[in-house]
């Protein structure tokens, strides 16, 4: 028995070492074969890590339909759309603002010194254009009335709203809302991070930062990084906010959505999302109402942006006219689509 144990002991340790080395060599060879030398295998993470969201829109949720043909703007690149009280369309693109009739007839063109990133038309007919880092004011005839002081190299004015004698501009570069009077005097800065006032600050991962004025005299500012619409007083107090991150249709997804908003006659909101191009309606309290259009209506492939260039561009702009028709500026095809509410039944 003792002899047998000894023999087994000798045999075992030899086998043990041999098997261990053999296994180590085998595993190492497998690991070498599995090496992703060319980097084609990607991260190697399982499907559970895939960024998968439901890109389709339930047709039953679509409350609007496109009316008429898409209107070509003639621009190589477009950035903003605005409507005036007479129903004329103002499109900012390339280095100009073009004025169209509702039927798409080009009435006029205002040539600008730079690329316009934002645009609004005041009740008095003055056209406020955000040209990269400063605001320029024009009249309907295209005459420049004023050019306000530049906000510096970092500034990027992506939205303007006018309410009486107050002008508000969203500066995506500096992540702040600027409150001016109509003469271009800076009155206040709104929305800077301030823990004492419970203001979280704006998170703007991509160059989309919109604001609108509502009849309740509260400024609605999109905080895209937080997926919220925030309501501010003229003094810069944050009153409330709504909006939530969700991959479902009720919420906003991606890094930074919504990117643009507009207000309907009943104070409901029209929101515009990029990446997954969706135009949606929310009631005045921020509850989801329905969909104006999804990716299919724009004829674009629903996708999640994968390159910085894709993520930084492709954001549509939206405007609403007196009949609550929704004008969507497709900045990919540089056309305008008009959506009207489907008739009940």
């Amino acid at each position: 028995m003792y002899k047998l144990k000894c023999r087994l002991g000798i045999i075992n340790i030899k086998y043990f070492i041999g098997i261990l080395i053999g296994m180590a060599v085998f595993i190492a060879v497998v690991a070498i074969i599995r090496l992703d030398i060319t980097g084609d295998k990607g991260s190697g993470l399982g499907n559970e890590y895939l960024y998968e969201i439901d890109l389709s829109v339930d047709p039953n949720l679509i409350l609007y339909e496109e009316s008429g043909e898409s209107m070509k703007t003639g621009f190589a690149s477009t950035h903003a759309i605005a409507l005036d009280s007479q129903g004329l369309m103002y499109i900012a693109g390339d280095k100009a603002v073009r004025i169209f009739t509702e039927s798409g007839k080009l009435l006029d063109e205002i040539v600008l010194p730079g690329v316009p990133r934002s645009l609004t038309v005041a009740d008095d007919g003055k056209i406020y254009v955000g040209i990269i880092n400063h605001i320029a004011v024009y009249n309907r005839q295209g005459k420049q009335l004023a050019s306000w002081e530049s906000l510096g190299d970092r500034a990027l004015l992506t939205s303007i709203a006018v309410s009486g004698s107050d002008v508000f501009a969203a500066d995506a570069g500096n992540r702040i809302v600027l409150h001016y009077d109509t003469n271009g005097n800076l009155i206040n800065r709104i929305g800077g991070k301030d823990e004492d006032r419970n203001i979280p600050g704006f998170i703007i991962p991509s160059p989309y930062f919109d604001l609108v004025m509502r009849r309740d005299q509260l400024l609605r500012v999109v905080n895209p990084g937080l997926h919220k619409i925030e309501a501010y007083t003229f003094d810069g107090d944050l009153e409330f906010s709504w909006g939530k991150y969700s991959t479902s249709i009720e919420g906003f997804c991606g890094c930074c959505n919504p990117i643009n908003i507009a207000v309907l006659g009943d104070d409901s909101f029209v929101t515009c999302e990029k990446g997954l191009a969706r135009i949606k309606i929310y009631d005045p309290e921020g509850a989801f109402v329905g969909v104006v259009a999804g990716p299919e209506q724009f004829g674009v492939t629903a996708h999640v942006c994968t390159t910085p260039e894709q993520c930084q561009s492709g954001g549509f702009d939206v405007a609403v006219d007196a009949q609550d028709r929704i004008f969507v500026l497709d900045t990919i095809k540089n056309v305008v689509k008009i959506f009207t509410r489907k008739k009940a039944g």
Partner: protein
Amino acid sequence: MIRIGYIIIGIAVLCFSSGAASALERFPPPEFEGGYEFPSTTTPHPQQDIYEYMDTVVLLAALSLASYLVLRKRSRRAIFILMVFSLLYFGFWRKGCVCPIGATQNIVLSIFDHSYAVPVAVAFFFLLPLVFALFFGRVFCAAVCPLGAIQDLVLLRPVSVPSWLESGLRLFAYVYLAAAVLFAATGSAFLICRYDPFVAFFRLNGNLNVLIIGTCLLVISVFIGRPYCRFICPYGILLRQLSRLSKWRVTITPDECVQCRLCEDSCPYGAIRRPSVSWPETEYGRGKKRLAILLVLLPILIILCGWSGSGLRKVTSRMHPTVRLAERIYLEDTGKVEDTTDASLAFRATGKETEALYREALNIRANFGLGGWFFGGFVGLMIGLKLITVSIWRQRTDYEAGRASCLACGRCFKYCPMEHARLNKTKEALV
């Protein structure tokens, strides 16, 4: 029984360390978080430059001390302590970078790409161990290389590797060196750094497959002394050749060899050469004929391997990102694949012409074709020389440490009775 205990403890330590390394973050954190502000671009802190020079000074000091300990002091314990220090300093503290093994690629790239400048510290890291090898043998391997040290520490139950197998496996190091030079020269990749099997341990982070390879090598190292150094290390090839020419080198005995055979099995790296008699008359004629045939076949082997290496350019050139991108764009444009990759999307976003990309890729592939000749030719030459070496009978009268293969670890010292006599004399002198 005690040895088995050591082995189990060693394996437990390995599993624990590799487990800790693999438990690191495998999924990137969210890209956007509230209030995050991108830090402004900073230039390297001056202290980093100081570290580089400090590393060079430490390397020089460690090599000098290793030479003293190996050749004069002849103390395995002191060599071991220095080895542990090197592992902690160059390995775990400096995270295995810069290392002379990887520095080979920097030097190669600087030769082929004139726009690439080699940092002074990297140049010193490449040259200093070679210079020391030329004078003192492989003292770098003995006590300064962290890769060697980590394997040496886990060597608990050495088993010998047959010399034919050792010779065969060592060819892999030549292939690896040639491949590393080819990919560095073409600006494709720093192969040695990318697949360094132990750097993941030093950094507690790394590719899972490389970590597995490193763990397997450490498991093998428990039984087979320093497998990476002996069969894989491309820098070791350079050190081997220079060590052959070294002015001073390790000797097993401090005096004359008494042929007691006590040291015969003391080297876990199979570096001790036994005394050999002259060739038997009957073998001499056959050996001479075999040598003549091999010498004639050598150029044929070189050309054949060179041709094969060049023929592999379609495969080898895929290591270059431009070639990979061009192939991907071609597949997408011809509809052979439907999806896109990040690289292809990024390329299309640049607006560059596809034709220009194809031209660039073809140029790179042509470079691989030329480089493949050298790569294959070198491998063929090494195979041929290896066969020739086997056919040459070397006469030895004493037990000797192999000039090229001795890692100067000093393990054999204590087996020599003459060494014990020397130590006793030293002690007596001290008393």
